[in-house]
Each structure stands twice: as structure tokens, then as C-alpha cells.
């Protein structure tokens, strides 16, 4: 019975993240538009964009290899699976025993690896620039992410996301320097990974400094739809991850009924709305950084997460 329920939860969660991801992107765009005084498109616009792209034909470069064609599917699957691993409305998920933070990072890393390969596959200079910059960002963001995982894992004594969420909800841990530092570092990493403003501009196709958009410049039709959907899912995934580790309240736990799971979903949507608003506020209040300063930004994230891990040894309760 428990297993059945857990499987049901898992399927529900996979569908929930997939349906909510474009809505979140639409919400962030709408809030940003309102903040700069435009009316902005409806929150449903990303769904329409994806549908339109799915119906369009695919235009392939003559020298594109099988890799170029298969990458959107691999990337989308990896990120969708990763988004399914993060507990969003309940910790009782069928995949919870495998939902390990390190596995999550590996999934995201492989998605990024394939996208960078695809960026170079067609041999255009833009794709190459995008890929090399993406790798530069990744080389700094991934160690920072791992350090964050280590500090949380030392504190909780587990890398399983469901256990971390349960532990945080139990109130056994109060305010901690290490957690605060890890939160700041995680937000910085999330901004870099999702190509948001101080690092990259998500709304441009015509800039020499773009990173993510430069890699996907050659994609069209359903391939582009998948790549876009994957990046929307990634944004949702990072918000869900931050919510799951640092603000898991409202999530259904072991032994609670259907009502708790439904309540968890409502709370999750509210968390996403708050997160999206904060992101839009942050993005409108800051200017884009030069590419060469990205290293400093992410180096800062790495050092903060390192400090968090160091402080675990002076603090009480470890």
C-alpha cells in the first residue's frame, strides 16, 4: 500500500513539475515586465511558445551529426528525472531512496555536458563560444554545489533529499551559520546555472556575451521546444531544491493522508510564486556582469560554501 502510494506520488510529481515549469517561467517574465512598466505577455505564453515550436518543422544543419539530434531528448530526460527526484509536495516518493543530492548533480552535469557537445557539433563559432563559456561556468559552479551538498550532508548526516527535508522539518536544527552560508552560495550557483541576469541574459538572442542561448542557436522546431522546456524545468528544479532544503515546511510526511499531499501542492505553488517574484525583483535591480567577472562571482560562491563547511567544526551540535 505504501509502495503504491509512493509510486502514485512519484507519477503525480513528475507531471506536476512538467506542467508547472512553463508557468513559473511565464510568471517570472510577467513580474519582470510589470516591474519595468510594461504590461507583459500572459503567464500562459510559454505554453503557447512550446506548442508552436512542437508543431514547427526541424531545420538541421547539413553537417549535424546524430549527437546533435539526440541531445535534446537526453537533456530533457535527464533534467525531468532530476526534477522528479527533488521532493516538492511530499517526502514519500517511490524514487526517494535513490534521490541523492550527488546523483542529482550528476544528472544535471551530464545534461550540461551533452548540451555543450551539441553546441560545438555544428561547427558555428557562436556555439563554440557558448560551449566554452558554459564549461567555464560549470568548472566553478559544480565544486561550489558539491561543497554546499557536503556542508548540508555533514549537518544532516545524509545526502538523501527526503531525509534532509524530514530533518529540517523536525526542528532539530536551529539557525546555523553554515546553513546561511550554504543558502547564499546555493542561490548564487542557481543564478549562474539557470543563466539568469548577472551571469547571462535569458531574454536575448543578439548579444556577444550570451552563454546558454549561444549554444542552442542552431536548434529549431521540436528540438528547440525540448531544450527550452528543459531549461524551464531546470529553473523549477533549483527553486524546488532551495525550498526543499531550506524551507521544507508544508510538505507531507510519512503517515499523512491525501489532504496533506494536496496541501503540500498548494504550498509548493505558493513557494514558487514567492521565489519567482524574488528572482524577478533581483534581476530587474541588477546589471549584467562582464563574462570575465563570472569567475569572481562563482569563486565567491565556492568560498562561501567552503566557509560553511569550515564553520560546522566550531558550531555546536556536530
Amino acid at each position, binding site marked *: 500500500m505504501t509502495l503504491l502510494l509512493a509510486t502514485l506520488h512519484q507519477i503525480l510529481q513528475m507531471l506536476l513539475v512538467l506542467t508547472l515549469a512553463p508557468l513559473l517561467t511565464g510568471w517570472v517574465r510577467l513580474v519582470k515586465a510589470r516591474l519595468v512598466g510594461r504590461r507583459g505577455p500572459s503567464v500562459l505564453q510559454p505554453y503557447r511558445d512550446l506548442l508552436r515550436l512542437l508543431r514547427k518543422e526541424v531545420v538541421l544543419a547539413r553537417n549535424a551529426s546524430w549527437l546533435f539530434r539526440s541531445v535534446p531528448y537526453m537533456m530533457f530526460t535527464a533534467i525531468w528525472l532530476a526534477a522528479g527526484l527533488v521532493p516538492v509536495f511530499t517526502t514519500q516518493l517511490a524514487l526517494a531512496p535513490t534521490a541523492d543530492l550527488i546523483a542529482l548533480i550528476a544528472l544535471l552535469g551530464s545534461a550540461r555536458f551533452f548540451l555543450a557537445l551539441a553546441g560545438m557539433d555544428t561547427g558555428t563559432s557562436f556555439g563554440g563560444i557558448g560551449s566554452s563559456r558554459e564549461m567555464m561556468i560549470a568548472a566553478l559552479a559544480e565544486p561550489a554545489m558539491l561543497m554546499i551538498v557536503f556542508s548540508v550532508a555533514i549537518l544532516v548526516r545524509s545526502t538523501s533529499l527526503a531525509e534532509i527535508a524530514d530533518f529540517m522539518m523536525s526542528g*532539530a536544527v*536551529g*539557525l*546555523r551559520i553554515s546553513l546561511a552560508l550554504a543558502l547564499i552560495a546555493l542561490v548564487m550557483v542557481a543564478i549562474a546555472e539557470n543563466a539568469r541576469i548577472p551571469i547571462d541574459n535569458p531574454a536575448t538572442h543578439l548579444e556577444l556575451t550570451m552563454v546558454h542561448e549561444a549554444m542552442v542557436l542552431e536548434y529549431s522546431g521540436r528540438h528547440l521546444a525540448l531544450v527550452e522546456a528543459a531549461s524551464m524545468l531546470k529553473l523549477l528544479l533549483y527553486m524546488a531544491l532551495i525550498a526543499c532544503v531550506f524551507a521544507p515546511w508544508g510538505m507531507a510526511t510519512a503517515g499523512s493522508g491525501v489532504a496533506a499531499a494536496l496541501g503540500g501542492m498548494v504550498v509548493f505553488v505558493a513557494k514558487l510564486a514567492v521565489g519567482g517574484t524574488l528572482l524577478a525583483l533581483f534581476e530587474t535591480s541588477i546589471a549584467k556582469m562582464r563574462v570575465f567577472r563570472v569567475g569572481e562571482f562563482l*569563486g565567491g560562491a565556492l*568560498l562561501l560554501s567552503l566557509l560553511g563547511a569550515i564553520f560546522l567544526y566550531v*558550531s555546536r551540535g556536530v
Partner: protein
Amino acid sequence: MSDLGYDAAHMLGAVVLLMSFALLYQRRLFSLLNVFTMQALALTATAAWQAYSHGEPHLYITALLTLVLKAILIPVALHRIVVKMKIHRTIEPALGIGLTMVAGVSLVTLSILLVLPVTADATALTRENLALSLSVVLLGLLMMISRRNAVSQVVGFMSIENGLILAAVGVAGMPLVVEMSVAFSVMVAFIIFGIFLFHIRERFDTLDMQKIESFRGESD
């Protein structure tokens, strides 16, 4: 297990330390002054919280002193100096920002390693507070040596003093007289710095310390 008194003191101390790192990261003079103000505000909150949670009313005076001197008077005065002297608003660090941050983290590690064996039988709060304040002091020193501009060196000096106050409010039983005298000596130091800056400026037409070194015959 978690009690609010410990948690809040712990977080506020961490904010002060974090602001020290933010000081090292800044590239513009005005944002440097803003971050310095925020550090002073965090310090005020720490002192006020310690006064409230330990029931030591004299710490309220420390908080008030910090608020008035560090968070209002000194930033405003430095701001006016920068505007008045038309100082170039970007900071050219003598050391790269990334390298400075690495040095900063190593200094924090060093101070933790130093404090841990010394305070083996102290409470967690005291131990942590000492580690935090020693780190703030060392980061202030780092700030002074890694910046060429005289104004950012002054800010570095002031943040050293923030670290001392952080240590003073954390350790129970520090007499008020000591805190008062530290606060006022810093105020005096600040006034001297101000006069000094004007004189350097008048004499050498710059506040860049590297250019001034040639007048001492150090680099020819």
C-alpha cells in the same frame, strides 16, 4: 536542542563576518561605504541582542554608540570626503579580488584553528564568537593591505574595530569603560585620518598610496 538566544547571536555574528567578505568583494567606493554601514548595523543588532538576552543593560550603550558613530557618522563623513575630493570612484585592488577572497577564507580558517585549542573548555557561543571576531579583525587587516586607495584603507581600519567590538560584546564581563574608550579612540583616529587625507591630497594630489611611496624614496 535549539534555543533562540544562541541561534540569533550566532546568525548576527555570521552576518558581520559575511559583510567583511562583502567589503573585500566591492569594486566601487560608494558601495564599499554602504556595505560598511550594513556591517555596523549588524554589529548594532548583535550588541542589542546580547544586551537583551543576557540582561546586561550597559551593552545597549555599546549598541547605541555603534549605531551613531559607525552606522551614521563615519559613513556620512567618508561619503562627503569622497564627493568633496572628487576621488576616482572605482577601487583598484593591489591584489586581485579572487586572490583576496582566497586569502580571506584562509585567514578565517587560521583563526578557527587558533581559537579551537585555546578555548577547549569554553562554551560553544564564546568559542564561536571569538573565532568570528578574530576573523573580522584579520579580514580588516587584509583589506588594509590589499587596497591602494586611502579611503578603503580607512574602511579596513574601521572594520578591524568592528571585530574588536564583536569580541567585546560576546565575552561576558567586559567593562563599559574599555568599550567607551575604544569607541572614542576610533573616533579620534577617524578625525586624524580625515585631516590626514586632506593633507595628503593637498600635497601629492592623489590618494593612491602606491604613488605616494615614490616620495619616500622606496621605489625609484
